[in-house]
Each structure stands twice: as C-alpha cells, then as structure tokens.
C-alpha cells in the first residue's frame, strides 16, 4: 500500500493537520485568531470528530479508551521502565541534555540525567533510548564551564573526560549537584578525579589545531562566505561559526560543515577594523569586522563586544607593519599608504587619484 496525499480524502487529513497542529507560538508574539471563524462551515463539519458511536457498540468515548489502551500497551511492554542494572540505585535524577556529535548530525538531545551508585547516564523515555552513559571507572575527570546561552542566561555546562581521551558534554538543569554527586560516589569507590580547565574543551579547535598551536582568542562570528553560483557568478552568504586567533593564524570554523573555511597566517594580515557596511537588502548598515590579508579581505560579524575584543587581540598580536612598495616613477621604496596619499618624496610623483582630487579642490 502506498501513501497518498492528493485526493479529496487526504485533503481532509491535511486540513486537520494544518489547521489544528504544527508548532505553537506564544500568544503574545502572534496575531490572535481566536474567535474568528477561519474556515467554512462545511469544512468544519468534515473535521468534526465522532463523539458517539453508540449505535454500533464502541464506547461513548472510544477516543479516550483508545488512548488508555495505547498507554497500557506501552507500560506492559516496559517502554516506560528505566533500564537499571541489578542492584543499581538512583542517587540523583534531573532533567538535562547531552551534546551528540557524529558527522553533520549534531545536537543537544534531552532526557533525564541519572547519577546512580554504578554510573552516570542520560535516558530518554519516548522513544526510549540511552543517550549517554559512563561508568565511574571510565571517568578521568571533569570540568565546568559557565556560559551564556542564547537567551543570555548564564548556565553551567559539565564536561566529562573519559580515560580514553573522549569528552562528553552535558547540560543539566543544575550542574553543581551532578558534579558533587559524581565526586562523592567516586570517592566512596576509591577512584581519583582530575579537575580540568575549560580551555581544554574546545572540541572544534582540537580538530584543526596543529602542533604547538594554541587558541589565543575565540569569538562566535558570522562570516560572509563567497561561493560560486551557476552562471559563473559568486554569491555571498553569511554563515555562522567561530573566529579563532591562534599563535599561528586567524581562522574561521564553519559550524555547519565542520571545517576551517577561512584562514590567514599572522604574517599575511595587513589590517583589521570594525566598520559599518551596507550589504543591501536586509543587511543595510551592518557592523562588520573586516580583516585585510595577503589574499584579499574577509568580513565577519557578531556581537559588537565580541568584534571589539577580537579586533583588539588581532591588533596586539599582528604587527601592522606598513607595506612597502616602489614608486612607479623613480623606483624609490616607500610605504604604500604614503605613496598613494602624498606621493613620492624623492621624485615628486603623485597618484592619478590624488591629482584628480587636487583639480576638484
């Protein structure tokens, strides 16, 4: 049997979904449609649910009965049961999520975080799945990091370092009690723990850092990525990622593709500056951090504060030495800016642009 979506009967099914379902929004951000007869009477009749089926048997509230049976079936199958081992006791239970990362499939997966006398795990009820699990013997140490989440609220993230070198990232409602519960239990079991620092936890940076390379500064930044479009044109799109300044280079990590999509050696950097640019459309007068380097120019954008921090760090780490060039007339060496702006001190040559300006003045 093949699914169908283009007949009259399926239209009812579609109406049912589109008019009644889909993601809900808080009433205060949308135009309220309550009380407005949105759809024609006949359409409403088509969507009406069957309240009674008494004539043919089936209980008055068959719908409620069905749901009760479905819940009962689930319980009988043990879906709702937590997969505890024998002799395992729960010490702490709390809502939390685990950062799952495999190729491009990355996300916070929510469930309940349990600390038991045997292990730490994050379990999701529906559909039932063990999202994260670590026995105390596998744990080498952990670290906490206080970060502002997207809503600018400060929350704590808990990182668990495995002896194998892997790192698990957890976000419990309250990180401290979890950390404490693990510490207490591991002490009881006679296991040692190491306190780690937050700088060791940048999983993305670990993927591209070379030997002896260290992150100096990291900020979340958008990057105006140029990519070829059909017809030989290039289009520019803002992509989200992180801009890193290391002791060797400046590079931008593209979150979605998980790769370094821009890099410039520190020697190659010619200048940095924050300015307002007009990209047209919705991006009129956008504040950008522009980095001029040996292969051209790159544009980044982010929080004003983040851009300023990055600019400052870039300035202090990159010697903005003046680029030298030869005078086109006599060949004497002079800084480029001086040659272009004031002309050659040796032979008196001035650029065509300056000449033009002089005429206007």
């Amino acid at each position, binding site marked *: *049997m*093949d*699914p169908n*979506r283009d007949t009259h*009967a*399926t*239209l009812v*099914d*579609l109406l*049912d*979904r*589109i*008019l*009644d*379902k*889909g*993601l*809900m*929004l808080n009433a205060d*951000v*949308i*135009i309220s*449609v309550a009380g*407005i*007869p*949105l*759809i*024609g009477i*006949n*359409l409403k*009749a088509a*969507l*009406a649910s*069957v309240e009674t*089926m008494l004539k*043919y*048997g089936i209980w008055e509230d*068959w*719908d409620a*009965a*069905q*749901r009760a*049976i*479905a819940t009962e*079936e689930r319980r009988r199958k043990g879906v709702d049961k937590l997969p505890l081992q024998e002799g395992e006791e729960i010490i702490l239970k709390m809502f939390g*999520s685990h950062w799952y990362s495999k190729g491009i*499939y990355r*996300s*916070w*997966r*929510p469930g309940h975080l349990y600390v038991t006398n045997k292990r730490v795990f994050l379990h999701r009820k529906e559909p039932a799945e063990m999202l994260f699990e670590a026995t105390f013997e596998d744990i080498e140490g952990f670290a906490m990091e206080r970060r502002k989440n*997207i809503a600018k609220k400060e929350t704590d993230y808990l990182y668990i370092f495995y002896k194998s070198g892997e790192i698990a990232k957890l976000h419990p409602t309250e990180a401290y009690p979890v950390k404490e519960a693990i510490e207490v239990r591991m002490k009881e079991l006679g296991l040692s723990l190491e306190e780690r620092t937050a700088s060791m936890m940048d999983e993305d940076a670990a993927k591209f850092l070379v030997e002896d390379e260290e992150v100096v500064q990291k900020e979340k930044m958008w990057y105006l990525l140029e990519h070829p479009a059909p017809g030989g044109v290039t289009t520019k*799109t*803002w*992509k*989200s990622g992180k801009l890193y300044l290391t002791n060797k280079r400046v590079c931008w990590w593209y*979150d*979605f593709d998980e790769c370094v999509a821009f890099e410039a050696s520190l020697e190659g950097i010619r200048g940095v500056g924050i300015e307002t640019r007009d990209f047209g*459309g*919705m991006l009129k007068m956008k504040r950008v951090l522009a980095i001029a380097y040996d292969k051209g120019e790159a544009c980044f954008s982010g929080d004003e504060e983040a851009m300023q921090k990055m600019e400052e760090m870039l300035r202090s780490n990159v010697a903005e030495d003046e680029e030298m060039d030869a005078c086109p007339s006599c060949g004497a060496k002079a800084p480029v800016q001086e040659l272009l702006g004031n002309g050659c001190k040796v032979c008196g040559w001035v650029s065509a642009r300056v000449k033009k300006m002089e005429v206007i003045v």
Partner: protein
Amino acid sequence: MMKKTITETGGDQRVGLYLYGIADADAQTELGPIGIEGNAVYTIPYKELSAIVHDCPLEPYNSEDEETVKGWVKTHQHVLDIAEDKFGTVIPFGFDRIIKPEDNAPANEVLKKWMAEEFDSLMEKIERIRGKKEYGVQIFYLPSVISEKIVEECEEIKKIKEEMKSKGPGAAYMYKQKLETAIKKEIESRMVSYFKDFYERIKQHVEEIKVEKTKKTDEKDKLMMMNLSCLVAEDKYKELGAELEEIDKEEGFSVRFTGPWPAYSFV
C-alpha cells in the same frame, strides 16, 4: 524568474510575518513568489536555523469560502514541501501563524527574539523529526460486516437467535433488544483486541505514534475506528505500507494511508 531583492519590509511596524516553518539551515535566501496569494517567501536566519516567512498585513487570512481556504492550506503545504526539498528538516507551523510587531520592535526582531529564546527547544524538535516524515493512518470498519461475522461466530448470540425462533411474536421485541445488547458487547470487546493488534503491528514500523480523535466519514456504512499520526523513518514507509495492506485485506476493515506530511503532529 526575476530575482527580487529583499526589501526591509520585515522591519516595518505595519508589517507582520506569516510563518510557514523553521528550517535546519543558516541560509538567507529567497524562495520566490510561491507563498499564499503569491507573496514572496524568504528566510530569516538566526544561528543555525532559518524561519520561512512572507510579509503580510497585520490580520489573519480569513474567509468563509471553503475553496479559498483550501487553496491557502494547499499553498501553505506547498511552501513547506519546497522548503524541505531545499533545506532538509523543517519544523512546520500551522495555518495563519502571523508574527506581529511589538511596541518598539518590528516583526522580524520579534521573530528573532523568539527564535533566540526557543533556540534549544527548536533544535531538539529538529532532531526529533530529522530524517523522518509524518504519515496519517486511518482504519475504518464496516459495522454490518463485523456484526454479521459476530452473529456467525459467537455461541452466545447464536443461542439467543435460536431461542428467538421458538418464542411467540410477543417476546420477539424483548429478544431483539437482548440480541442487540449482546452484539454491541461483543463488538466492543472485539474492537479493543483489534485496536491492540493493529496498534502493535503498526508500531513496529514507526518511530513515534499518536492516537488521534476518530472522525466522521463520508460513507454512511463505514466508521473510523482508529486515527493515527505516525512519525516514520524515511526508509521505513514501505514496510509500514506492506503492514497496512495486510490490515486492509482483513474482512470488514479498510485502511487509508496518507502522507508524507511535514511532522505537524510531532513538534
């Protein structure tokens, strides 16, 4: 198609944003005049997500004309189809969800603020539905066929029928009632076991299942006994189809299988 530059209409205090869905893509792009009433649909990115919207006046789409509404609904669905083709996973919104501007903020700012506040939960929803589609499964039964079957199979009912024959016309009415009650009871208990059986069989092939309200049908002699929304992994819908075909073959039952839909019921 001529490329129209996105104007900053979303920033206007008199403009609302009709919201189709939230896509798992950090794209700022235009989808063309494919929206309701030919409006230009475009995306508003926030971090790794993008809202799919069109600019609209500050009032909901509303009509008493059935065909008009059907047309709007179909267009809403069509935009989501295109968005899914282009971006992959999309959280669908229902019809007529229009973001309004607030005192000091235009609609696009309100939308971005909402996306920022709900970011974690939106990402969770994206993961819940990634690589999956929603299908509707409705199972109908023919009461006449089922009750005939019951009369044939059920010993108790057979007995009442026999007794009925031997009694005079005066007692017939009482027996008829007795018979109806017996059939009704039997149908009830059978429906429960049919429900359990079908539910279990369908469950094997889906990620998540929702029991929806049963609806009226167009055909008089056909009643809906089950109405399920199923979240199905992309490579599993054929398995589900095969299972439903088996159920469809059972005497007195028929199945309607609709979709694939965006995951309206699982967000």
